[in-house]
């Protein structure tokens, strides 16, 4: 008859109509003649989480990212040394579990030419990489929502002007400009790097957002909101944004991976983060000198973490894309 598992999600309501408190005699007729079946549904958030959980790779990605974040936050607890406090005599130590005079796991990933342990590089470096990735992506999306949302909602000449500016930004060559700006402006400051990323990357996302706004502004619920006197700002942020949010969340997630890669790239090119701040990209850059002498671990561990992080974010993004799609009923 009714499959029990289905019954847990959808309870057929058989309750009788409740009496109406209002003065309306109109209503009663409806309640008695209304035989429509009522489904007790899960909230939208719950449905999304259910779908997400079924995506194994995405779950693995989410867990990995959580662990990486914790590693960054608790770096001082994991790594016995930090970037200002190290044993300069212990240089070029290959990975090992114990070391004379240091009974802890300090050299589990070996050490670099200056005696910094790679464990320090990896744990403290995670802070910069993750922070730059997350904050840049958030900044990009905020700009993109404001710019793309305004252009798409109002349309007409506002749209034309804003989108031409966007086109100009899109024609700029990303990497050369990034190197130039980082070299002259950021001078090793993480926050300025984030700002540069945000300013250079919003146009692509703004186009995405604009597309959704163009669609939703023609929907009748937008018109209905205007009919009751809701302001344009409120329609843009409270009515349309929640509907356009799924693709924006997915794009933001994937952008995080891109920014982590870009940050490592400018570090590698020597125009990003400066010592004594440490980052994965910087570690990779320094490793070049000694790589030929068999110092493989120096490049391996930061590179591996970079790879794991980017991969996890991409899996997470894929999972979110499927989970947030209302039409998918997996």
């Amino acid at each position: 008859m009714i499959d029990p598992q289905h019954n847990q999600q959808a309870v057929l309501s058989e309750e009788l109509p409740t009496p109406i408190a209002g003065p309306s005699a109109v209503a009663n007729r409806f309640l008695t003649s209304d035989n429509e079946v009522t489904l007790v549904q899960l909230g939208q958030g719950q449905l999304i989480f259910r779908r997400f959980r079924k995506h194994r790779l995405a779950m693995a990605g989410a867990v990995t990212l959580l662990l990486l974040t914790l590693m960054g936050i608790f770096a001082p607890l994991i790594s016995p040394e930090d970037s200002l406090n190290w044993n300069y005599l212990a240089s070029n130590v290959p990975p090992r579990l114990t070391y004379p005079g240091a009974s802890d796991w300090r050299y589990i990933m070996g050490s670099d030419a200056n005696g910094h342990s790679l464990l320090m590089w990896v744990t403290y470096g995670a802070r910069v990489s993750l922070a730059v990735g997350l904050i840049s992506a958030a900044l990009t999306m905020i700009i993109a929502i404001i710019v793309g949302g305004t252009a798409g909602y109002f349309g007409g000449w506002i749209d034309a002007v804003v989108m031409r500016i966007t086109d100009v930004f899109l024609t700029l060559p990303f990497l050369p400009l990034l190197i130039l700006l980082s070299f002259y402006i950021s001078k090793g400051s993480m926050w300025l790097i984030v700002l540069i990323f945000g300013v250079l990357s919003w146009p692509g996302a703004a186009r995405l957002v604009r597309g959704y706004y163009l669609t939703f502004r023609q929907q009748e619920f937008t018109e209905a909101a205007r009919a009751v006197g809701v302001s344009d700002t409120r329609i843009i942020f409270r009515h349309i944004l929640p509907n356009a949010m799924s693709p924006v969340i997915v794009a933001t997630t994937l952008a995080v991976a891109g920014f982590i890669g870009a940050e490592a790239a400018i570090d590698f090119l020597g125009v990003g983060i400066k010592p004594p701040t440490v980052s994965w990209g910087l570690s990779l850059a320094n490793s070049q000198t000694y790589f030929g002498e068999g110092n493989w671990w120096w490049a391996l561990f930061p590179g591996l973490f970079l790879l794991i992080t980017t991969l996890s974010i991409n899996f997470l993004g894929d999972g979110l894309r499927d989970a947030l799609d209302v039409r998918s009923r997996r």
Partner: protein
Amino acid sequence: MQEENGRKPLQVTTGPGDDVLMDVRHLKTYYPVLGGIMRRRVGWVKAVDDVSFAIRRGETLGLVGESGCGKTTIGRSIIRLLKPLAGEVIFEGKNILDLPRDEMKRTRKDLQIIFQDPYGSLNPRMPVGDIIGEGLMVHGMKNRKEREEIVQYFLSVVGLRKEYVRRYPHEFSGGQRQRIGIARALALRPKFVVGDEPVSALDVSIQSQVLNLLKDLQQEFGLTYLFTAHDLSVVEYISDRVGVMYLGKMVELATAEELYANPRMPYTQALLSAIPIPDPSVKKQRIVLQGDVPSPINPPSGCPFRTRCWLAQEVCSAETPPLREVAPSHWAACHFA
């Protein structure tokens, strides 16, 4: 008094001494046709072309016509969801097309609309309570609890359970959604409601429920309706007076009984002959029109209907027939009416 203000006299009145709530004069709403590489305007779609009519307080004016005749555009224009090109919409003595922004926002409380599509007109990401209560909020009722009480009251008024406030639109059927749309329109206690084909998307059994609900609510809240539909029997049932539209023009306007019993304009006659009668023994003379509706970008000169009319003569292409009173309270735009 109207002439004193420099306004043109009314083309269509309702009768002397009538309590007119909304007076629409020479309304023109055109859509630009863009073309070429530069997306310049190359013409206009004359969706509503010089239409005048008045609506009495408490009555229901029905508008009928084929798809694309401008019914929906009229409804949207007179509550200023679209910006008409020209004309006046006098609501309680003020031309709402001229109102400044803040005064318009206040006036919006009085002018509400019920949409055709029960699916597209409710925000899928908003709980029903917020959909209905938002108007109250933007008009100054900041107290959440107070708002929710009113929302629950209106839910019960339209025959839905109060517990539905926290549910999302996708959890409802088409008829229930349309009632949510009605509750949203009513929550602001409007004086005038545009029903933009509010039952066209519903199946027949639900249609009658919603129509009766609309009728009862009109009594209960003293509403005035402008009701559009392409279903002639629906309009006959709900309307006190009916206007017939063709190609952006109002071609006939009369009380519902008079119009259905005694249509004067040939287009109306053809339209009414298409109503099916559920009685196989009745032999009907169906008027089948030749050709298609002309393009509203380039409408025919004179009478818009002359290209398909069996009475058409030279005068029809030379002169646009004005909407004139051919019988008491019966206006028609035809040289031969």
